[in-house]
């Protein structure tokens, strides 16, 4: 599964993209797994209300299932326009 990070999430974690193997069945489980990795992940994911998630390039929710998903992206609320 490809995990992408944008804006300050990318900066805190220190990379824009990584490929991981996971048995997580929901986004929330995936986040738990990432948090246990290293302090920089724990810090980036410390407040989920400050984060948004997209599954296969569609905005989604943290309780959404990961079955069949190939690309997960984490980022702060958008500020375009």
């Amino acid at each position, binding site marked *: 599964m490809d995990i*992408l990070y*944008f*804006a*300050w999430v*990318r900066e805190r974690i220190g990379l824009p993209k990584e490929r991981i193997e996971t048995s997580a069945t929901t986004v929330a489980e995936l986040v738990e797994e990432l948090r246990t990795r290293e302090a920089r992940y724990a810090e980036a994911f410390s407040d989920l209300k400050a984060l948004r998630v*997209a599954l296969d*390039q*569609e*905005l989604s929710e943290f309780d959404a299932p990961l079955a069949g998903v190939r690309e997960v*992206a984490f*980022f*702060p*609320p*958008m*500020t*375009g*326009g």
Partner: protein
Amino acid sequence: MSAEIRVQEAAFDPGAELSAFTPRAAAAGAGAMVSFTGLVRDLPGAGGLSRMVIEHYPGMTEKALEKIAAEAADRWPLGPVLILHRFGALTGQEPIMMVATASAHRVAAFEAAEFLMDYLKSRAPFWKKEETGDGTRWVAARSEDEDALGRWR
């Protein structure tokens, strides 16, 4: 409705875009065109903005903008629609983005442009970072921008 969606690093001239849009709107029978342009504000005072960097999510950005344009076309009888957004490094006073709408009557053209802007602000994956004399900071999302979507539900 035919939507022209462009996500580009290159600078653009809002006037040149409107010049190209006008005959397309007229040919579609439109009596009203509305354009919105966002500019990098060159804030005066200590540590004024020297640069803005816009990050986006290639692939998702285009999909999100197409979806927003299609939703606008479902709600209002529209002629052509333009959505144009830059990414990368911008300096003060440069155009950041632009939308243009066309319809038979003015209310539809105005509402569709406001709808596109409200959704683009909170639902298209762009992030702005400002660099000033005091350092750099990611622009925080404003709760008013999220609240603005309530108008369209």
